[in-house]
């Protein structure tokens, strides 16, 4: 009856919500289960040409001769392009654009592109590739940072083999702290290249419209506005005449934030004046696209007998592959993640990112964290073992809280619930009764040995200090009362569109079915930044709420005119504008929309938001101001004869402020966990002397339904007042600590520690034969 809600409490109180924190079904679910969702690789425009890319035949060498004349003459071939056909900058890269669109005089890895073909059909395009003649002068091949840094090593780039160096300003005196610590641990951990393996490989379609001069590229991506700039830069084209439609995407996980087919497609469409389609094969996706960086991380950690951490010294060396893309920030985040959510009075973090001729390192869900957290959380387990402390106790003893100074030296200004997640972990049945559970399982399966492990993480949300970290949205109400939300964000599978619709419906107190989300199209949506860094719900959510704050006064203005009442006496609430005098007369959204049309008052607003940043600035985006905190528990069974590990159960306990969509958070945890299990036990992009040994799913082993453990998600709520309804983000964290949780569980089962990923059955058998490693 009465109105009264002006500015909803955004999540700190106990307000009962209609959509926030519920299992709202996904807005895109129906189309996805009926096969109606159209991905960019589902487009086959009439009259289109098929494109193919000629890739380097050797991993490292000079190009002495590149002759495409025979290919050009093949009937059915409409274009063969080389570097000479690039009007603008011949390079792309999120941070430093030194990845060639088409190589000029040198190839630096097997995925390098040399020429493009567009032909009437796939077979002809394939045939044309074979007619292109390339002569190389091979150069020494560098697989690893050690080789790249050795004296006299061949220089992969003119400025040498070091891509990026990061030394975070040290805190205190770590050498002294380690010297004075009663316990000092040190260990190096090595991790492999990992493949994103999204089910939709990179691909799409481009069309050039001669009349308007617009080149449209459909390509599942993560940031259409950056693609627009990168395409425009290479074509020397007006960015406003490049239209990128990047949504939806058949999986991305960070791997589609960078350019893949976009520039190639635009070049060919412009040249041929015909629609062009390019869809990478699985092998091409593995060889050419970016991977999770292989990293070596060396930890030195000092602690007192009381279990308090005194100091940490971390050195990370990343194998970044041939070009930059976003390697600097990935290394930086590895450093920021490496101490975990714990307090240390003294610290030092140093990193080096090194060029090689191996796989291309790039952005991948977790962004440098899985590599280091694998090491840190095993070291903490070792420490707990030495001190005969419960591993959760040890973590609780050192865990940070909101307001604390982090290991890096910045103040944790936003919600920090790691203690809550650890407390919740301690209360789970799996942890409390773990000895009993292992005993019962061992009785039922006498051949196997069982173990339970725990690990935690803090995962930065947002791009970090000093980087453009914003989102814009527009919200419009049409004549029929339908609400349109436009965001440049991409639906990469995580369910962000549904979260946005929930936030908007909650803020307007209206039914969600009214809302249509238009997304990921540079001609239809405002720039909302990249869908990366677990940032999209927080920042788009805030932009939506800021938009609603502008929309409500417009609705009040319409009502004032319609009801002939002063605006001061009207208020928005419950999806209506109410009069606060006059016995509560009111107008519904439908009525308001119709009246607004009648008065020619457009109900259209923009909303913008920018990330709040940290109190410190170490450069290059470090440090961050928001973190997801998470603890995970794993139960494993190990077969000592075959070395096989079965992950039987995983419990994820995330603190992401507030869960906007319960099923969405569970989905992120469940998917992240199985991806993390793959990283831990099976997955490795094997590259030797620059040659890929894994080129498809028969050699690159992904987890299947048979590897999917029982899972539980226990959500810890600690609403963050600067997030939408208290939300932060949760996309990446769940894939991180599961790896050391499984490693710690393996140790609990068979007493072995592993410092290299993946942990294979052979490693386990060898370890058991050779005793404790």
């Amino acid at each position, binding site marked *: 009856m009465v109105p009264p809600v002006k500015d909803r409490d955004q999540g700190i109180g106990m307000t009962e919500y209609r959509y926030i924190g519920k299992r709202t079904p996904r807005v895109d679910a129906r189309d996805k289960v009926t096969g109606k969702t159209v991905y960019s*690789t589902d487009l086959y425009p009439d009259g289109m040409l098929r494109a193919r890319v000629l890739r380097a035949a050797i991993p490292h060498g000079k190009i002495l001769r590149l002759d495409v004349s025979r290919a050009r003459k093949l009937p059915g071939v409409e274009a063969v392009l080389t570097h000479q056909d690039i009007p603008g900058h011949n390079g792309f890269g999120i941070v430093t654009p030194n990845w060639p669109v088409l190589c000029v005089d040198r190839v630096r890895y097997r995925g390098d592109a040399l020429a493009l073909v567009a032909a009437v059909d796939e077979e002809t395009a394939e045939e044309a590739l074979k007619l292109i003649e390339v002569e190389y002068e091979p150069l020494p091949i560098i697989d690893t940072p050690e080789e790249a840094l050795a004296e006299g090593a061949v220089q992969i780039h003119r400025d040498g083999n070091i891509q990026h160096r990061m030394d975070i300003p040290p805190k205190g005196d770590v050498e002294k702290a380690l010297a004075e610590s009663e316990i000092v641990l040190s260990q190096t951990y090595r991790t492999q290249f990992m493949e994103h393996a999204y089910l*939709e490989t990179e691909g799409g379609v481009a069309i050039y419209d001669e009349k308007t001069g617009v080149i449209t590229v459909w390509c599942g991506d993560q940031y259409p506005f950056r693609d627009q700039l990168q395409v425009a830069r290479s074509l020397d084209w007006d960015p406003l005449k490049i239209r990128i439609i990047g949504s939806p995407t058949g999986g991305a996980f960070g791997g589609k934030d960078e350019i893949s087919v976009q520039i190639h497609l635009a070049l060919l469409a412009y040249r041929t004046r015909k629609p062009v389609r390019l869809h990478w094969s699985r092998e091409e996706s593995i060889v050419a696209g970016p991977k999770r960086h292989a990293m070596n991380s060396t930890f030195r950690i000092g602690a007192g007998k009381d279990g308090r951490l005194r100091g940490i010294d971390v050195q990370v060396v990343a194998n970044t592959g041939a070009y930059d893309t976003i390697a600097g920030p990935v290394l930086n985040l590895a450093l920021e993640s490496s101490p975990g959510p714990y307090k240390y009075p003294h610290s030092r973090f140093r990193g080096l990112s090194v060029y090689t001729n191996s796989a291309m390192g790039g952005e991948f869900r977790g962004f440098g964290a899985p590599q280091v957290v694998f090491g840190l959380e095993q070291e903490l387990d070792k420490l707990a073992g030495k001190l005969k402390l419960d591993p959760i106790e040890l973590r609780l003893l050192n865990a940070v809280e909101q307001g604390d100074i982090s290991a890096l030296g910045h103040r944790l200004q936003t919600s920090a619930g790691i203690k809550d997640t650890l407390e919740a972990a301690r209360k789970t049945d799996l942890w409390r009764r773990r000895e009993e559970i292992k005993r019962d399982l061992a009785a039922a399966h006498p051949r196997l040995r069982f173990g339970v492990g725990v690990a935690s993480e803090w995962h930065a949300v947002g791009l970090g200090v000093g980087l453009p970290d914003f989102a814009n949205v527009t919200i419009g109400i049409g004549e029929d009362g339908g609400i349109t939300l436009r965001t440049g964000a991409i639906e990469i599978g995580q369910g962000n569109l549904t979260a946005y619709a929930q936030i908007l419906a909650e803020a307007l107190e209206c039914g969600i079915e009214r809302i249509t989300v238009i997304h990921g199209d540079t001609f239809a949506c405002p720039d909302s930044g990249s869908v990366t860094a677990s940032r999209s719900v927080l920042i788009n959510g805030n932009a939506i709420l800021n938009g609603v704050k502008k929309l409500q006064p417009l609705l009040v203005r319409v009502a004032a005119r319609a009801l002939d009442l002063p605006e001061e006496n009207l208020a928005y609430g419950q999806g209506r504008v109410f009069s606060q005098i006059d016995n509560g007369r009111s107008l519904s959204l439908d009525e308001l929309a119709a009246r607004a049309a009648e008065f020619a008052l457009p109900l259209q607003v923009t909303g913008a938001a920018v990330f709040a940043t940290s109190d410190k600035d170490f450069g290059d985006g470090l440090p961050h101001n928001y973190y997801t905190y998470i603890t995970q528990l794993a139960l494993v069974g190990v077969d000592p004869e075959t070395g096989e590990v079965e992950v039987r159960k995983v419990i994820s306990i995330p603190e992401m402020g507030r869960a906007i969509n319960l099923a969405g958070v569970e989905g992120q945890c469940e998917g992240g*966990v199985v991806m993390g299990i793959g990283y831990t036990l099976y997955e490795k992009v094997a590259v030797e002397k620059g040659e890929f040994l894994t080129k498809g799913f028969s050699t690159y082993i992904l987890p299947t339904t*048979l590897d999917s453990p029982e899972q539980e998600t226990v959500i810890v709520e600690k609403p963050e007042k600067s997030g939408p309804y208290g939300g932060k983000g949760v996309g990446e964290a769940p894939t991180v600590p599961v790896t050391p949780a499984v490693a710690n569980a393996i140790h609990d089962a068979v007493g072995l520690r592993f410092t290299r990923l993946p942990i294979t059955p052979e490693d386990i058998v060898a370890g058991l034969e050779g005793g404790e490693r």
Partner: protein
Amino acid sequence: MNEIAIRFILNGKEVSVKAPPTFTLLRLLRERLGLTGAKAGCERGECGACTVILDGEPVTACLVLAPQVEGRRVETIEGIGNGEELHPLQQAFIDESAAQCGYCIPGMIMAAKALLDRDPGPSREEIKTGLSGNLCRCTGYTKIIKAVEVVAGKSRKGSESC
């Protein structure tokens, strides 16, 4: 390239379509018949994204040559609902939030349908085995298995009561 006419029953209706004899069923569906529900995730028989049902059996359409379907029955994701009405598996996938990026989902649902067509009440382990050829990179399979279990469970209960 020379093209040949291929006639078969697609989602209950007879179709005749021309294609090069080297075309796979997957390309035939996607490029000649405009049915893009079946996806190309690997085109090597290794991911299951292209799963359709051929004469009642689940097959990876990327490994079936188009001429092989001559005169046979092919069912795809586009044909399993009933107009506006969803197949119970589709409804369960929505209710359980089993689709994320969705790219694996048509193949997953077709594999699940083939399984349930054969045995309407499989156990959890049988469901896992039945779907083990279908990769999903987003969901960890938890909600997918659950969605199929819900449908299988209903039919298990149904058969117990009669």
